[in-house]
């Protein structure tokens, strides 16, 4: 794995059409909900290529609104730069109440 990644690293994310869930584009042009498996573009050219794959998937009605977003690190160390994307990747920042709960926590 590459170390000391600097500069703009980007991944492609979207929502899956069928259920709306957050997904990331992998190296093998699949869509995963696990951000650690996201393909990371290291330069503008690679980013454009990745987004192109995303756009095709959108045209094929698999995902909705694919876009590039900046990250730091990759694999287990990957972390979106913006808070919005961290929340998309990791879920709610508080515990939601469950169906059978009669009390909040």
């Amino acid at each position, binding site marked *: 794995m590459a170390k000391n990644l600097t500069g703009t690293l980007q991944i492609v994310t979207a929502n899956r059409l*069928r259920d709306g869930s957050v997904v990331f584009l992998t190296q093998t042009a699949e869509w995963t909900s696990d951000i650690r498996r996201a393909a990371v573009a290291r330069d503008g050219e690679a980013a454009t290529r990745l987004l192109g794959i995303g756009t095709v998937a959108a045209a094929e009605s698999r995902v909705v609104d694919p876009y590039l977003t900046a990250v730091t690190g990759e694999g287990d160390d990957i972390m979106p730069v913006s808070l*919005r994307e961290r*929340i998309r990747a990791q879920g709610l920042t508080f515990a939601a109440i469950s*169906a059978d709960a*009669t009390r*909040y926590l």
Partner: protein
Amino acid sequence: MYRYDEYDHAFVAERVAQFRDQVKRRLAGEITEDEFKPLRLQNGLYLQLHAYMLRIAIPYGTLSSKQMRTLAHIARRYDRGYGHFTTRQNLQFNWIKLEDAPDALADLAKAEMHAIQTSGNCIRNTTADHWAGVAIDEIEDPRIWCEIIRQWSTVHPEFSFLPRKFKIAVTGSPNDRAAVRVHDIGLRMLRDENGEPGFEVIVGGGLGRTPMIGKTIRPFLPKQHLLSYLEAILRVYNRYGRRDNIYKARIKILVHEIGAEEMRRQVEEEWEGLRDGALDLPADVVAGIGRHFAPPRYQPQPTIATETERLRFENRDFALWLRSNVVAHRQPGHAIVNLSLKPEGGPPGDASAAQMDAVADLADAYSCGEIRVTHEQNLVLPHVAVADLPAVWRGLTLIGFATPNLGLVSDIIACPGLDYCALANARAIPVAQRISQHFADLARQHDIGELKIKISGCINACGHHHVGHIGILGVDKNGTEFYQITLGGHAGDDVSLGSILGPAVPADQVVEAIDSLVRTYLAVRQDGERFLDTYRRVGNTPFKERLYATA
């Protein structure tokens, strides 16, 4: 309660079938997202950060126990088991799958509910005083008029493509509990000199990016003219409202730009051609709709509810709850019970499927099967016998909805914010949670008294921060959450918009900042003053000095 007639049933069923087909074609890739998006929005289905969100209209905030059970069922079956009651008396499910949405809508339709006109540039769900029909100061049940508006505005061909969304609020009492001055149209019922009920017509209020207080363009409108007058307003808006700029498209901007007087002139001129026509409802039609809202048959009640009195003296929690959450009812021997969906540390307005079912059971046992949703993200059991209050309190305590904090510092309004919302700048729910934990001590809350905190995660102001006694607005400063604080907003009769206190504070200092504001108030308040009274007397300065001195 209003029941669907054959027309309503057929219309909603047809829409579900139509949407089912549209979803099928979308999933098969036969239509593009650009083509599909307006169709799903017309059915209340948004795409948010993590999933699709389904916004369900609860007309004028009235629900039957059966409808509440349907919502619980949808939460369990199609969502993650909970829903969020909003400031527009709607309910939002946050985790709906596109492929399940038609089934969810079909189940809703069986319980006479839908998600139509909960999005888009049309007339949205008309909101009302949540104590409609039971409030002591009420002239007439506003829901009769809301239902008339609902029927008139549902798929109204002329008003399906307005310059922007359009929200109407109605209060049936001279005391405003529906925030009528911050809606596109607000209707406030009052009586003329002969004692005849009618409406004060207020136009051009709203929150969002450019908050405005509505202007009265007609101090008194005899009620039979309501629809023709509304139609005249909508026509003027449809004609002149700005479609060139989304930020200037609401009717409030039009009223602001041409002035209330010119707006009045235009509306009255338009109305001349409409009044006394087909839209002016004959009394028997109004009476027919009114029968749906006739009060239930209340059981005769003893003059003294012994058990209730005993418990009030013996149990401090019960006494506190009576004081803050229970309100006088127009029917002797009865009370209005307000349920707090603001438990300490909880997300404001959220209810689990189990809680929804339990509320439905309590409504059946003690409130004639009826429930209300408030624009402050709470629920109401509107018809409880005073003698049943101990049982209702115990039932609500079991499900965590008996926190005695109505109107107090922990009864916070918060929009979904950055945890859910695609438009958000910052989180709102976790901020509310931390504030309510900080002020958990109920005795202290009661000492602080009425204090309404309202939080929005962006300038769209779904959390009504402009009219919070303390308003909190999430902003994004170079990718970090900051919160701008406003003071002195209020949504009642003496409506006011909050004024900005100073520079926004970072997320980790919000609780401290609110604590500082509360301490300042406690230090300078005079006898009997609420937070808002003190603020109106002393202004920003003492609050500002103390808050920013320490910063």
